[in-house]
């Protein structure tokens, strides 16, 4: 069933396995962006689509207890995750099953699964980060 489920936004993720986020890379500026921009916002040159790291560190997060948008579970959490390998701080939904475990600075791993609804009100694939069991990637 999930084969037909569309990503939350076209071109930002691959279901896998392995699940991956897709960003843009500017070879001239040697910088990555997420999501992939139309052109490099620094030099306006063409960007290449590249996979991003599936490991990160939780920079900050919010536990949202008000009415959840897009059919997301209630409560849910959203945060900024530092993809250190890519030099990026990205916004991400966080694992709805692990809300109690979240703490700033903890290592996180990427997941992709059907979760909530898209802008078209249809079920969609979302990326989210979940606390890593081990600290070897910290």
């Amino acid at each position, binding site marked *: 069933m999930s084969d037909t489920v569309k990503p939350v936004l076209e071109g930002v993720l691959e279901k896998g396995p392995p699940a991956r986020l897709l960003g843009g890379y500017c070879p001239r500026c040697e910088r990555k962006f997420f999501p992939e921009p139309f052109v490099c916002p620094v030099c306006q040159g063409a960007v290449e689509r590249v996979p991003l790291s599936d490991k990160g560190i939780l920079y900050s*997060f919010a536990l*949202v207890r*008000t009415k959840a948008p897009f059919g997301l579970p209630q409560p849910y959490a*959203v945060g900024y995750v530092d993809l250190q390998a890519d030099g990026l*701080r990205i916004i991400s939904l966080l694992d709805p099953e692990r809300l109690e475990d979240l703490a700033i600075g903890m290592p996180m791993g990427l997941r992709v699964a059907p979760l909530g609804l898209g802008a078209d009100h249809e079920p969609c694939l979302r990326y989210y980060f979940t606390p890593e069991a081990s600290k070897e990637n910290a």
Partner: protein
Amino acid sequence: MREVDIIGVGMTRFGKHLQTSFMDLATLPILEAMKDGGIRPAEIEAGFCSYALAGDLHGVITGGQTIFWQAGISRIPIINVENACCSGSSGLYLAWTGVASGLYDVAIVVGAEKMVVPNFGLLGGGDTELDILEGLVTPASFAMRAQRHMLQYGTTAEQLAQVAVKNRLHAGLNPLSQFREPITVEDVLNAPMIADPLTRLSCCPNADGAAAVILCAGTRAKHYRSDPIRLAASVLRTGSYQNPLDLVPWETDYRTCKAAYEQAGLGPEDLDGAECHDAFTIAEIMHYEAMGLCPAGEGGRLVESGATRLGGRIPVNTSGGLLSKGHPVGATGVAQVVEGVRQLRGEAGERQIPDAKVFLAQCMGGDKDADARTCTVNVLTR
């Protein structure tokens, strides 16, 4: 650039205006401001009309032409302005650029919003941006700043709550504020949680409301009023959207305040009062720091000290702020300047800052890549 003065202001009560249409609500402060400035509609050379949500909520398109025409103002350049929570102050900025440059001698800005409608819910930012689709509602964005502020500087939930308590204390002295009953720190902490650590009383409520300001070339202002208020600086900036960007401190906020102080030739030590964009309690604490009222990280301790309460060293949000007045998005940035003008004229009644001479109004709006989309700072003097 020429000197620019404020010669007329008007503002409706913020709250529910169920029996008044959006267009009529927006017309009211224009009529009041023209009367206040002793100026006729035909003397106004340009009009800027700001709203952010009326298009979505009421199907309004180019509402300014209808609104100004109702007030007797037509034929001249009329421009409708949307810039998130800074829509109103962006209209003011445009009016300032027009008068300061010499293009117009007199220009008016009106900001209005009518948001008290069924099922409004939370203020959003569009359904096609990835951050919104991943669950970034506005309270979450500020909750994340609060979490970082608490971690980095030891700011407490009680200090955050004290912002809401202080602003409600001020609102009790402002008949135009929506909520005026005093609240306690316990009330704020025990209110339903929206996004930890922000409770319902830590978030600004929706409101209907409108405000207007008339600007005039400094050389002509005394023709209209004996006590014009100088608009000593008007600055609009946007975010850098560099990645990674720290949530705390807020670089765009600092950068905009610094530019405004430079333009005015003044510093934070010169201020007698300020309005800032307290959409959430944590926001006011971060704006203290950007406005230079205290060092980075000290905002929580500043509100706790009482310095920003009426009677303190530098009263902030004497109007009651967004937290008590409510936040009719298009009107907010103009209403802050109306409060500043009334404080500097000595017309602020029970909430008057004694002998106020310098006032700053800071506004901030929108969310993009962990930064603001807009930030405005206006400095008023007499």
